[in-house]
Protein backbone atom coordinates (compact mmCIF):
# COMPACT_ATOMS: atom_id res chain seq x y z
CA UNK A 1 0.00 0.00 0.00
CA UNK A 2 1.20 3.51 -0.70
CA UNK A 3 2.42 5.63 2.17
CA UNK A 4 1.38 9.18 2.72
CA UNK A 5 3.00 11.74 4.94
CA UNK A 6 1.92 15.22 5.76
CA UNK A 7 2.00 17.78 8.54
CA UNK A 8 -1.23 17.87 10.49
CA UNK A 9 -1.67 20.64 13.02
CA UNK A 10 2.07 21.08 13.10
CA UNK A 11 2.96 17.42 13.61
CA UNK A 12 4.47 15.24 10.94
CA UNK A 13 2.39 12.16 10.41
CA UNK A 14 2.50 9.32 7.96
CA UNK A 15 0.58 6.17 7.31
CA UNK A 16 -0.32 3.55 4.80
CA UNK A 17 -3.39 4.32 2.74
CA UNK A 18 -5.17 2.95 -0.28
CA UNK A 19 -5.50 4.97 -3.42
CA UNK A 20 -9.13 5.51 -2.56
CA UNK A 21 -8.56 6.67 1.02
CA UNK A 22 -10.01 10.14 1.38
CA UNK A 23 -8.23 12.81 3.35
CA UNK A 24 -11.21 12.87 5.71
CA UNK A 25 -10.87 9.12 6.30
CA UNK A 26 -7.17 9.42 6.91
CA UNK A 27 -7.79 12.15 9.48
CA UNK A 28 -10.69 10.43 11.22
CA UNK A 29 -9.68 6.80 11.07
CA UNK A 30 -5.93 6.98 10.62
CA UNK A 31 -5.20 9.81 13.03
CA UNK A 32 -8.36 9.65 15.23
CA UNK A 33 -8.95 13.33 14.55
CA UNK A 34 -12.71 12.91 14.62
CA UNK A 35 -13.49 16.61 14.77
CA UNK A 36 -13.64 16.60 10.99
CA UNK A 37 -17.15 15.40 10.21
CA UNK A 38 -18.82 13.76 7.25
CA UNK A 39 -22.25 15.17 6.54
CA UNK A 40 -22.82 14.42 2.89
CA UNK A 41 -21.34 12.65 -0.06
CA UNK A 42 -21.66 15.27 -2.75
CA UNK A 43 -19.24 17.85 -1.33
CA UNK A 44 -21.93 20.32 -0.41
CA UNK A 45 -22.32 20.38 3.36
CA UNK A 46 -18.78 21.43 4.25
CA UNK A 47 -18.69 19.68 7.65
CA UNK A 48 -15.40 18.12 6.54
CA UNK A 49 -13.72 21.43 5.72
CA UNK A 50 -10.03 21.57 6.65
CA UNK A 51 -7.14 23.71 5.48
CA UNK A 52 -4.58 22.26 3.09
CA UNK A 53 -1.57 24.46 2.47
CA UNK A 54 -3.43 27.40 3.92
CA UNK A 55 -6.70 27.21 2.03
CA UNK A 56 -10.03 25.59 2.84
CA UNK A 57 -10.85 22.33 1.09
CA UNK A 58 -13.46 19.66 1.57
CA UNK A 59 -11.51 16.76 2.96
CA UNK A 60 -14.16 14.25 1.96
CA UNK A 61 -13.56 15.30 -1.61
CA UNK A 62 -9.83 14.97 -1.70
CA UNK A 63 -7.69 11.85 -1.67
CA UNK A 64 -5.26 11.42 1.17
CA UNK A 65 -2.54 10.89 -1.42
CA UNK A 66 -3.33 14.27 -2.95
CA UNK A 67 -2.33 15.79 0.37
CA UNK A 68 1.04 14.04 0.43
CA UNK A 69 3.61 16.51 1.68
CA UNK A 70 0.99 19.14 2.50
CA UNK A 71 0.40 21.23 5.59
CA UNK A 72 -3.01 20.30 6.94
CA UNK A 73 -4.89 22.08 9.66
CA UNK A 74 -8.04 20.72 11.27
CA UNK A 75 -10.38 21.92 13.97
CA UNK A 76 -8.17 20.17 16.51
CA UNK A 77 -5.43 22.63 15.59
CA UNK A 78 -7.46 25.80 16.05
CA UNK A 79 -7.21 26.29 19.79
CA UNK A 80 -4.49 28.38 21.39
CA UNK A 81 -1.32 26.56 22.47
CA UNK A 82 -2.53 26.57 26.08
CA UNK A 83 -5.72 24.79 25.02
CA UNK A 84 -7.99 27.79 25.36
CA UNK A 85 -10.34 28.63 22.53
CA UNK A 86 -8.91 30.60 19.63
CA UNK A 87 -10.49 33.91 18.67
CA UNK A 88 -12.90 32.45 16.13
CA UNK A 89 -13.84 29.54 18.37
CA UNK A 90 -14.39 31.88 21.31
CA UNK A 91 -16.56 34.15 19.16
CA UNK A 92 -18.72 31.18 18.17
CA UNK A 93 -19.24 30.36 21.84
CA UNK A 94 -19.83 33.95 22.87
CA UNK A 95 -22.43 34.53 20.15
CA UNK A 96 -24.09 31.11 20.23
CA UNK A 97 -22.91 30.33 16.73
CA UNK A 98 -23.46 26.61 17.17
CA UNK A 99 -26.12 24.28 18.42
CA UNK A 100 -25.66 20.58 17.72
CA UNK A 101 -22.02 21.19 16.87
CA UNK A 102 -21.82 18.86 13.90
CA UNK A 103 -21.27 21.46 11.18
CA UNK A 104 -19.25 23.61 13.56
CA UNK A 105 -15.72 22.40 12.77
CA UNK A 106 -16.33 23.08 9.08
CA UNK A 107 -17.85 26.46 9.87
CA UNK A 108 -14.87 27.48 11.99
CA UNK A 109 -12.45 26.37 9.29
CA UNK A 110 -14.44 28.23 6.62
CA UNK A 111 -14.54 31.32 8.81
CA UNK A 112 -10.79 31.17 9.37
CA UNK A 113 -10.30 30.83 5.61
CA UNK A 114 -12.42 33.91 5.03
CA UNK A 115 -10.80 36.03 7.70
CA UNK A 116 -7.33 35.16 6.48
CA UNK A 117 -8.19 36.71 3.12
CA UNK A 118 -10.59 39.45 4.22
CA UNK A 119 -10.13 40.94 7.65
CA UNK A 120 -13.33 43.00 7.59
CA UNK A 121 -15.96 41.15 5.61
CA UNK A 122 -19.47 42.54 5.23
CA UNK A 123 -22.48 40.45 6.23
CA UNK A 124 -23.09 39.69 2.56
CA UNK A 125 -19.49 38.59 2.07
CA UNK A 126 -19.71 36.33 5.10
CA UNK A 127 -22.92 34.76 3.87
CA UNK A 128 -21.47 34.29 0.41
CA UNK A 129 -18.34 32.70 1.81
CA UNK A 130 -20.44 30.17 3.75
CA UNK A 131 -22.01 28.97 0.50
CA UNK A 132 -20.37 25.59 0.88
CA UNK A 133 -21.18 25.02 4.54
CA UNK A 134 -24.64 23.92 5.58
CA UNK A 135 -25.94 24.39 9.11
CA UNK A 136 -29.34 22.97 9.94
CA UNK A 137 -29.60 24.32 13.49
CA UNK A 138 -28.75 28.00 13.72
CA UNK A 139 -30.28 29.57 10.64
CA UNK A 140 -26.79 31.09 10.25
CA UNK A 141 -27.87 34.24 12.12
CA UNK A 142 -25.48 33.72 15.01
CA UNK A 143 -22.77 32.19 12.84
CA UNK A 144 -22.66 35.44 10.90
CA UNK A 145 -22.59 37.38 14.16
CA UNK A 146 -19.80 35.19 15.49
CA UNK A 147 -17.66 35.75 12.40
CA UNK A 148 -18.29 39.48 12.50
CA UNK A 149 -17.23 39.54 16.13
CA UNK A 150 -14.12 37.49 15.41
CA UNK A 151 -13.24 39.83 12.55
CA UNK A 152 -13.58 42.84 14.81
CA UNK A 153 -11.35 41.25 17.40
CA UNK A 154 -8.71 40.08 14.96
CA UNK A 155 -8.72 43.54 13.40
Amino acid at each position, binding site marked *: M*PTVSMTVNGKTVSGEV*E*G*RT*LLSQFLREGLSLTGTHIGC*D*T*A*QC*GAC*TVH*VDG*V*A*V*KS*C*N*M*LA*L*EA*DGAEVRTIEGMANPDGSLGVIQAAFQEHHGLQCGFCTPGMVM*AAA*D*LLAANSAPSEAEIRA*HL*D*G*NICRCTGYHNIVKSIQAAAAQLG
Partner: protein
Amino acid sequence: MYDFEFVKPSTVADAVAALADEDAMALGGGQTLIPTMKQRLASPSKLVSLAGIADLQGVTTGGGSVSVGGATTHATVAAEAGAYPALAALAGDIGDPAVRNRGTIGGSVANNDPSADYPAAALASGATIRTDRREIAADDFFQGMFETALEDGEIITAVDFPIPEAANYQKFKQPASRFALVGVMVAKYPDGVRVAVTGASENGVFRWKEAETALTKDFRTDALMDLDINPLNMISDLHGTGEYRAHLVKVLTKRAVATC
Protein backbone atom coordinates in the same frame (compact mmCIF):
# COMPACT_ATOMS: atom_id res chain seq x y z
CA MET B 1 -15.29 3.75 -3.76
CA TYR B 2 -13.53 1.01 -5.67
CA ASP B 3 -9.81 1.04 -5.21
CA PHE B 4 -7.45 2.30 -7.86
CA GLU B 5 -3.83 3.14 -8.44
CA PHE B 6 -2.90 6.77 -7.84
CA VAL B 7 -0.07 8.41 -9.72
CA LYS B 8 1.06 12.00 -9.71
CA PRO B 9 3.46 12.66 -12.59
CA SER B 10 5.39 15.90 -12.84
CA THR B 11 5.41 16.30 -16.60
CA VAL B 12 2.72 16.31 -19.25
CA ALA B 13 4.53 13.56 -21.13
CA ASP B 14 4.51 11.29 -18.09
CA ALA B 15 0.85 12.02 -17.52
CA VAL B 16 -0.01 11.18 -21.12
CA ALA B 17 1.94 7.95 -20.80
CA ALA B 18 0.16 7.09 -17.55
CA LEU B 19 -3.20 7.73 -19.17
CA ALA B 20 -2.51 5.20 -21.89
CA ASP B 21 -4.06 2.44 -19.76
CA GLU B 22 -7.58 1.75 -20.83
CA ASP B 23 -9.28 2.51 -17.52
CA ALA B 24 -7.04 5.34 -16.44
CA MET B 25 -8.59 8.74 -15.85
CA ALA B 26 -7.09 12.15 -15.37
CA LEU B 27 -7.73 13.77 -11.99
CA GLY B 28 -7.94 17.54 -11.97
CA GLY B 29 -9.38 18.91 -8.74
CA GLY B 30 -11.66 15.90 -8.41
CA GLN B 31 -14.64 17.98 -7.40
CA THR B 32 -16.92 16.00 -9.71
CA LEU B 33 -14.97 12.79 -10.17
CA ILE B 34 -14.40 11.94 -6.51
CA PRO B 35 -18.08 12.27 -5.48
CA THR B 36 -18.98 10.16 -8.50
CA MET B 37 -16.50 7.51 -7.49
CA LYS B 38 -17.74 7.58 -3.90
CA GLN B 39 -21.17 6.60 -5.24
CA ARG B 40 -19.45 3.79 -7.16
CA LEU B 41 -20.66 5.33 -10.39
CA ALA B 42 -17.19 5.31 -11.86
CA SER B 43 -14.42 2.77 -11.44
CA PRO B 44 -11.17 3.89 -13.03
CA SER B 45 -8.27 1.53 -12.42
CA LYS B 46 -5.86 4.40 -12.22
CA LEU B 47 -6.12 8.09 -11.41
CA VAL B 48 -3.51 10.35 -12.89
CA SER B 49 -3.32 13.52 -10.84
CA LEU B 50 -2.38 16.56 -12.90
CA ALA B 51 -1.75 18.69 -9.81
CA GLY B 52 1.97 18.04 -9.76
CA ILE B 53 2.71 19.33 -13.27
CA ALA B 54 4.13 22.82 -13.00
CA ASP B 55 3.55 23.53 -16.69
CA LEU B 56 -0.21 23.28 -16.20
CA GLN B 57 -0.36 25.89 -13.46
CA GLY B 58 -1.09 29.56 -13.50
CA VAL B 59 -2.58 32.46 -15.38
CA THR B 60 -0.58 34.49 -17.91
CA THR B 61 -1.69 37.61 -19.69
CA GLY B 62 -0.28 38.92 -22.93
CA GLY B 63 -0.92 39.40 -26.60
CA GLY B 64 -4.51 40.35 -25.99
CA SER B 65 -5.39 37.15 -24.26
CA VAL B 66 -5.46 35.47 -20.90
CA SER B 67 -4.05 32.01 -20.86
CA VAL B 68 -4.99 29.67 -18.05
CA GLY B 69 -3.02 26.50 -17.38
CA GLY B 70 -5.14 23.37 -17.41
CA ALA B 71 -4.60 22.52 -13.75
CA THR B 72 -5.19 26.05 -12.48
CA THR B 73 -7.81 26.25 -9.77
CA HIS B 74 -10.88 28.45 -9.99
CA ALA B 75 -9.62 30.43 -7.01
CA THR B 76 -6.39 31.23 -8.83
CA VAL B 77 -8.25 32.34 -11.94
CA ALA B 78 -10.52 34.51 -9.81
CA ALA B 79 -7.48 36.12 -8.24
CA GLU B 80 -5.19 36.39 -11.25
CA ALA B 81 -7.30 36.82 -14.38
CA GLY B 82 -7.83 40.50 -13.72
CA ALA B 83 -7.10 41.35 -17.33
CA TYR B 84 -10.37 39.66 -18.21
CA PRO B 85 -12.63 40.75 -15.33
CA ALA B 86 -15.72 38.83 -16.42
CA LEU B 87 -13.68 35.62 -16.55
CA ALA B 88 -12.25 36.27 -13.10
CA ALA B 89 -15.73 36.98 -11.76
CA LEU B 90 -17.12 33.83 -13.33
CA ALA B 91 -14.35 31.73 -11.80
CA GLY B 92 -14.95 33.39 -8.45
CA ASP B 93 -18.55 32.24 -8.40
CA ILE B 94 -18.11 28.58 -9.31
CA GLY B 95 -19.25 26.24 -6.57
CA ASP B 96 -18.16 27.47 -3.16
CA PRO B 97 -14.84 28.68 -1.77
CA ALA B 98 -13.54 25.23 -0.84
CA VAL B 99 -14.52 23.85 -4.23
CA ARG B 100 -12.81 26.75 -5.95
CA ASN B 101 -9.62 25.94 -4.09
CA ARG B 102 -9.56 22.47 -5.65
CA GLY B 103 -11.53 22.52 -8.90
CA THR B 104 -9.58 23.24 -12.07
CA ILE B 105 -10.38 24.78 -15.42
CA GLY B 106 -9.15 21.72 -17.27
CA GLY B 107 -11.38 19.44 -15.24
CA SER B 108 -14.40 21.64 -15.82
CA VAL B 109 -13.85 22.11 -19.52
CA ALA B 110 -13.04 18.44 -20.15
CA ASN B 111 -16.12 17.31 -18.24
CA ASN B 112 -18.38 19.73 -20.12
CA ASP B 113 -21.19 19.37 -17.62
CA PRO B 114 -24.26 20.93 -19.26
CA SER B 115 -24.63 23.25 -16.26
CA ALA B 116 -21.00 24.22 -15.76
CA ASP B 117 -19.75 27.81 -16.02
CA TYR B 118 -16.41 27.55 -17.77
CA PRO B 119 -17.77 26.09 -21.02
CA ALA B 120 -19.88 29.23 -21.38
CA ALA B 121 -16.83 31.40 -20.84
CA ALA B 122 -14.74 29.45 -23.32
CA LEU B 123 -17.42 29.38 -25.98
CA ALA B 124 -18.40 33.01 -25.59
CA SER B 125 -14.77 34.05 -25.73
CA GLY B 126 -13.95 31.96 -28.76
CA ALA B 127 -11.25 30.46 -26.61
CA THR B 128 -8.67 28.01 -27.80
CA ILE B 129 -8.29 24.80 -25.87
CA ARG B 130 -4.71 23.64 -25.99
CA THR B 131 -3.92 20.01 -25.34
CA ASP B 132 -0.83 17.89 -25.22
CA ARG B 133 -1.24 17.27 -28.95
CA ARG B 134 -3.16 20.08 -30.61
CA GLU B 135 -5.16 23.27 -30.36
CA ILE B 136 -8.94 23.13 -30.59
CA ALA B 137 -11.26 26.08 -31.10
CA ALA B 138 -14.01 26.21 -28.48
CA ASP B 139 -16.57 26.03 -31.28
CA ASP B 140 -15.23 22.63 -32.23
CA PHE B 141 -14.43 21.51 -28.72
CA PHE B 142 -17.85 21.35 -27.05
CA GLN B 143 -19.88 18.64 -28.71
CA GLY B 144 -22.94 18.15 -26.55
CA MET B 145 -23.70 17.26 -22.98
CA PHE B 146 -20.53 15.86 -21.41
CA GLU B 147 -19.02 15.43 -24.86
CA THR B 148 -15.93 17.15 -26.15
CA ALA B 149 -13.46 16.78 -28.95
CA LEU B 150 -10.94 15.31 -26.54
CA GLU B 151 -9.58 11.91 -27.41
CA ASP B 152 -8.92 9.27 -24.80
CA GLY B 153 -5.95 10.24 -22.71
CA GLU B 154 -5.70 13.74 -24.16
CA ILE B 155 -4.84 16.39 -21.57
CA ILE B 156 -5.90 20.03 -21.60
CA THR B 157 -2.72 22.01 -21.06
CA ALA B 158 -4.21 25.49 -21.26
CA VAL B 159 -7.21 27.51 -22.30
CA ASP B 160 -6.50 30.78 -24.10
CA PHE B 161 -9.16 33.46 -23.76
CA PRO B 162 -8.98 36.45 -26.12
CA ILE B 163 -9.76 39.50 -24.00
CA PRO B 164 -12.99 41.13 -25.15
CA GLU B 165 -13.86 44.82 -25.20
CA ALA B 166 -16.61 44.06 -22.75
CA ALA B 167 -18.08 40.95 -21.26
CA ASN B 168 -20.39 39.77 -18.52
CA TYR B 169 -21.57 36.46 -17.17
CA GLN B 170 -25.00 36.15 -15.59
CA LYS B 171 -25.70 33.01 -13.63
CA PHE B 172 -29.10 32.07 -12.30
CA LYS B 173 -28.34 29.42 -9.74
CA GLN B 174 -30.23 26.21 -9.29
CA PRO B 175 -31.26 26.54 -5.65
CA ALA B 176 -29.87 23.18 -4.47
CA SER B 177 -26.70 22.43 -6.38
CA ARG B 178 -25.84 26.07 -7.07
CA PHE B 179 -24.85 25.04 -10.56
CA ALA B 180 -26.21 27.24 -13.32
CA LEU B 181 -29.91 26.68 -13.85
CA VAL B 182 -29.11 28.97 -16.73
CA GLY B 183 -25.94 30.92 -17.29
CA VAL B 184 -25.27 33.36 -20.10
CA MET B 185 -21.91 34.81 -21.07
CA VAL B 186 -21.88 37.75 -23.43
CA ALA B 187 -18.54 38.90 -24.85
CA LYS B 188 -18.09 41.81 -27.22
CA TYR B 189 -15.14 41.67 -29.60
CA PRO B 190 -14.17 44.05 -32.37
CA ASP B 191 -15.41 41.55 -34.93
CA GLY B 192 -18.67 40.78 -33.26
CA VAL B 193 -20.52 39.71 -30.14
CA ARG B 194 -20.60 36.15 -28.91
CA VAL B 195 -23.28 34.77 -26.60
CA ALA B 196 -22.87 31.40 -24.95
CA VAL B 197 -25.50 29.69 -22.83
CA THR B 198 -25.00 26.99 -20.23
CA GLY B 199 -27.41 25.11 -17.99
CA ALA B 200 -30.28 25.36 -20.40
CA SER B 201 -29.89 22.90 -23.22
CA GLU B 202 -29.95 19.14 -23.18
CA ASN B 203 -27.13 19.39 -25.68
CA GLY B 204 -24.91 21.30 -23.34
CA VAL B 205 -23.37 24.72 -23.81
CA PHE B 206 -24.36 26.49 -27.03
CA ARG B 207 -24.11 29.79 -28.83
CA TRP B 208 -27.26 31.84 -29.24
CA LYS B 209 -26.53 32.95 -32.73
CA GLU B 210 -29.59 35.13 -33.33
CA ALA B 211 -28.69 37.14 -30.26
CA GLU B 212 -25.11 37.42 -31.45
CA THR B 213 -26.24 38.77 -34.81
CA ALA B 214 -28.61 41.23 -33.22
CA LEU B 215 -26.08 42.40 -30.63
CA THR B 216 -23.30 42.69 -33.17
CA LYS B 217 -25.51 45.13 -35.05
CA ASP B 218 -26.68 46.97 -31.98
CA PHE B 219 -25.13 46.24 -28.60
CA ARG B 220 -28.12 47.25 -26.50
CA THR B 221 -30.69 45.20 -24.61
CA ASP B 222 -33.37 46.52 -26.94
CA ALA B 223 -31.76 44.59 -29.74
CA LEU B 224 -32.95 41.40 -28.06
CA MET B 225 -36.54 42.53 -27.75
CA ASP B 226 -38.02 40.47 -30.55
CA LEU B 227 -35.87 37.41 -30.07
CA ASP B 228 -37.05 34.26 -28.39
CA ILE B 229 -35.37 30.98 -27.91
CA ASN B 230 -37.02 27.68 -28.69
CA PRO B 231 -37.70 25.73 -25.46
CA LEU B 232 -37.86 22.42 -27.35
CA ASN B 233 -34.46 21.04 -26.42
CA MET B 234 -34.17 22.78 -23.09
CA ILE B 235 -33.61 20.80 -19.92
CA SER B 236 -36.81 20.21 -18.01
CA ASP B 237 -36.42 18.98 -14.45
CA LEU B 238 -37.74 19.54 -10.95
CA HIS B 239 -36.12 22.98 -10.89
CA GLY B 240 -37.69 24.36 -14.01
CA THR B 241 -39.35 23.56 -17.27
CA GLY B 242 -37.84 24.04 -20.68
CA GLU B 243 -40.06 27.08 -21.15
CA TYR B 244 -38.73 28.61 -17.95
CA ARG B 245 -35.15 28.00 -18.96
CA ALA B 246 -35.75 29.46 -22.41
CA HIS B 247 -37.25 32.52 -20.78
CA LEU B 248 -34.28 32.85 -18.44
CA VAL B 249 -31.85 32.71 -21.35
CA LYS B 250 -33.34 35.88 -22.72
CA VAL B 251 -33.60 37.63 -19.35
CA LEU B 252 -30.02 36.83 -18.47
CA THR B 253 -28.71 37.79 -21.88
CA LYS B 254 -30.34 41.18 -21.48
CA ARG B 255 -28.89 41.55 -18.02
CA ALA B 256 -25.46 40.58 -19.22
CA VAL B 257 -25.60 43.16 -21.97
CA ALA B 258 -26.88 45.78 -19.56
CA THR B 259 -24.04 45.01 -17.14
CA CYS B 260 -21.31 45.00 -19.79
